[in-house]
Structure formats: structure tokens, C-alpha cells
């Protein structure tokens, strides 16, 4: 990422790519929420940042005024790529979404649990081998980043070994591509070429996989052409992978730094699903954008047509008006109406899958490696952009 002009102040000149934001955004959001709850920046052609739960909720519930046609804020938009239904607005949104939902119900996701558990154990085996050989181990690089990518590949009927390729594209599109158009175009073009081939293959010879299902699917008389299916594959790949690995990585990061919480979950594994909800709240990985359709006013803020809004579910989930002790991570928090998977019609379609993957991955890790800590002799790094999670997570294990 290129060097960026320093931020003058967080209320009128915020920059979600600044090093301070990337390292620790929480005090920034708290400051904005307390003083000027909807911040603005002229950067990125004009962006608003609501930080209160209620404002984030109201915007998410108002697709008439706030469009989803661009869900990532970038320096430039060289490609108008749709990824339905995440980039769809009503009325097109409904069919694109409904057709996907059956593939991601709890029942459908349960069928992937065995494979996920086996995969986690394969990765842990390798981590333990590395550790035994005296090599350093990393919770993100050796563990978290492999899980969602291989499960999505499995769902799409693609070889799990394609995972490295997928991660490369995600990096180009979501990280490098935010301020570098060439990276974005390259990642996008390679991904599109690969998926077009897959679609042609499945048209010719359908299998028991999500691509074949979508090519044949129908909702309310709508069928979906290759371009639509291509967009949805793009979505599943981009939205389903670094998001979950970020949420899982942040959970492991928390457990590495909090012996009391980690030991409690080792002793009380039945608490893990509740703890995962709290990690999702406190370290929500995903911020989605909206586009202002027409000049409007929202809670006293005049908004101009085509300005963007960073819909910060992570900041909303830290709002003390909604969550008591919002700044504390309470692993047995019972009432947790968090918005990590979004609110309203764009609720993350893969939320059941993400929850299953995070839960299984933490269960297996704590079972096999109950003692681990951050290795402070190596750097821990966090992603830049609108998906937040650790990218290097060096651990001392055992």
C-alpha cells in the first residue's frame, strides 16, 4: 500500500487505510461516536462513517436511499463488477438471494462439518510437525486462512488445492486493489477467466456442487444466466473467505492474549459457541459500503448523490448505547444482538457456514493445542481495508 497523507482529524478527514486505523481502530471509532457520530472524509471521493448502532441499522434498513451497487470503497472504480445478491438492490435482489439461501441453511452447513473438522486436524498436524522441527508457527498463515478457502472450493466442486490461487485473487481485489487499479483489474480478470471455464464445464457436465445448482436453479420464475452465476461465484469467493479467516484469526488472537478466557474454554468447551458470538461482536471483521442514490439528509448530515457510506458493523457492535460493557470481551455474554453479519436484506448469506467454521476451528485447536501465546519476537499484522483480521499471527505453542 502506498504512503498516505496523514489524517488531519478523524471527524472530517478519516482514512480507513491509515496505519493507526489498521493497527487499532477501536479508540478512533469511540472518539467519533462520542463527538461526531457520523464522520466524513473527502478522501475516496467522499465517504461517511456512521459509528452508532442505530444509525448503521437505519441505513442498512433503507436500500431505497442507500444502494449496495458498490460495497467496497476504493480510490477508483475501473471495473463495474456485479456480485449478486450483495451488489443488488430491490427488486432484483430478492431472487438472487432466495436462490442461494437453501445452500446455506444450518442443515446444509451441517453436512460440511465433518470435512471442516478433518481439515482443521490436518492443519494442526502440520503445525505440530513444524513446532517439533523447531520451526515457527503462525495461527493465521498455518491455520485460519486455509479453512474457509478450502471449504468454499469444496462447495463449488473445485479442488481444495485451488485455495492458494483464490487467496492471491482476494489479496489483489480486496487489499492491493483498494488503491491500485492494476492489481484490482489483474485479480479480477484472472478470477473471471477461471470461473468462466468452470461454468462452461458444469454446463456441459453438471455435478453435485453449488455451481451446477445455480446454473439449474429457479426462483419465482427467474432463472440465472452465466453472467449472473459468475457474479455469484465471485461473491462467494470474495465474501466467504477472508471474512471468515479474519474472524477466526481475531478469535485466536484474543485467546492467545487471554490465558483466563482460553483456559476457561478448554475446561468448558460447551461455552465455545457463545464465545464465538462475542468474538464476532467485539472483532467484527466486515464493513460494507453503500452509495447515496440521490442528495439526501440523514440524521442532520447532508449527503450528496454518489457519496459512499462505510457501514461499520464493527463500530456499531462497540456502541455502549446498545451493548453494556461494549469495550470488554465477555466470553459468556448471554444477550448479544450483534450485527457482525449485517442487518436487513443483505444479512450475510454464509453466516451459518462462518459460524460453523469458526466454532469447529476453535474447538479442534483448543483440544489439540490448549496452551498457546502470541510470540512477541515476531510481528503480528492486521489487514488493511474493509475486512479486518490478523494476517500474521505468530504463536508460541505448547
Amino acid at each position, binding site marked *: 500500500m502506498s504512503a498516505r497523507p496523514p489524517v488531519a482529524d478523524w471527524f472530517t478527514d478519516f482514512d480507513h487505510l491509515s496505519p493507526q486505523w489498521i493497527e487499532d481502530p477501536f479508540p478512533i471509532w469511540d472518539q467519533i461516536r462520542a463527538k461526531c457520530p457520523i464522520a466524513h472524509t473527502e478522501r475516496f471521493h467522499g465517504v461517511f462513517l456512521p459509528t452508532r448502532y442505530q444509525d448503521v441499522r437505519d441505513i442498512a434498513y433503507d436500500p431505497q436511499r442507500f444502494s449496495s451497487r458498490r460495497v467496497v470503497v476504493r480510490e477508483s472504480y475501473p471495473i463495474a463488477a456485479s456480485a449478486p445478491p450483495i451488489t443488488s438492490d430491490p427488486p432484483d435482489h430478492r431472487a438472487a438471494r432466495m436462490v442461494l439461501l*437453501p445452500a446455506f*441453511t*444450518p442443515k446444509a452447513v451441517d453436512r460440511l462439518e465433518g470435512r471442516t473438522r478433518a481439515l482443521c486436524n490436518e492443519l494442526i498436524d502440520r503445525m505440530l510437525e513444524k513446532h517439533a522441527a523447531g520451526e515457527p508457527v503462525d495461527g493465521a498463515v498455518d491455520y485460519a486462512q486455509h479453512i474457509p478457502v478450502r471449504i468454499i472450493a469444496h462447495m463449488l466442486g473445485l479442488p481444495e488445492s485451488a485455495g492458494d490461487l483464490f487467496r492471491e485473487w482476494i489479496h489483489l481485489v480486496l487489499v492491493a486493489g483498494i488503491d491500485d487499479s492494476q492489481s484490482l483489474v489483474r485479480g479480477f480478470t484472472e478470477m473471471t477467466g477461471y470461473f468462466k471455464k468452470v461454468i462452461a464445464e458444469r454446463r456441459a457436465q453438471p455435478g453435485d456442487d453449488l455451481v451446477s445448482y445455480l446454473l439449474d436453479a429457479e426462483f419465482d420464475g427467474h432463472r440465472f444466466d452465466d453472467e449472473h452465476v459468475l457474479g455469484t461465484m465471485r461473491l462467494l469467493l470474495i465474501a466467504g473467505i477472508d471474512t471468515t479467516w479474519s474472524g477466526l484469526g481475531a478469535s485466536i488472537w484474543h485467546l492467545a492474549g487471554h490465558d483466563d478466557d482460553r483456559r476457561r474454554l478448554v475446561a468448558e468447551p460447551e461455552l465455545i459457541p457463545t464465545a464465538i458470538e462475542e468474538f464476532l461482536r467485539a472483532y467484527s471483521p466486515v464493513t460494507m459500503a453503500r452509495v447515496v442514490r440521490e442528495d439526501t439528509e440523514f440524521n442532520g448530515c447532508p449527503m450528496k448523490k454518489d457519496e459512499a457510506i462505510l457501514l461499520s458493523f464493527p463500530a456499531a457492535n462497540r456502541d455502549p448505547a446498545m451493548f453494556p460493557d461494549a469495550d470488554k470481551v465477555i466470553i459468556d455474554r448471554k*444477550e448479544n444482538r450483534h450485527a457482525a453479519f449485517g442487518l436487513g436484506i443483505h*444479512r450475510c448469506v454464509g453466516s*451459518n457456514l462462518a459460524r460453523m467454521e469458526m466454532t469447529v476451528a476453535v474447538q479442534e485447536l483448543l483440544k489439540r493445542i490448549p496452551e498457546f501465546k502470541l510470540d512477541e519476537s515476531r510481528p503480528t499484522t492486521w489487514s488493511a481495508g474493509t475486512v479486518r483480521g490478523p494476517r500474521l499471527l505468530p504463536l508460541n505453542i505448547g
Partner: protein
Amino acid sequence: MGQKKILRVAVDRELCQGHNRCQKLAPDLFVLDDYGLAQAAGDGIVPAGMEEQARLAEANCPEFAVSLTEETKDD
């Protein structure tokens, strides 16, 4: 003549987006359709002993789609 309290759960189908928190927290009180959208199981009446589950389902719905009502009925 005594009075009996009846607790009932309901899901607002207009608000439910299929987060599935209710069904996870109270699997006997909610059912999901083929799209993963929730509704109350049967008539929504909460059997004795499941009050806490019902309360948690209500308190964890991100869309405020789950409601819990108390009715009083003569025995």
C-alpha cells in the same frame, strides 16, 4: 379459581432475515423453512422449563424479529 401464565414466542416474518440465532438457542421452539427463515414451532406456546431458552432467543435476534408475550388465562 387460579390464573395461569402462558408464554408465547412469535417470529415476524417480515423482519426475519434468517440469522438462525433463535433456532440455535431454542431448537424446540422454532422451526426453519427451506430458506432458513424462522417461525415459531406449533402455536408458539413455551413449555414449562423452556422459558430461559425463549428469553435468550428473543434477546439475541439481530433483527428484533422474535417476540415474547405473556398471556394470563383463567384455569
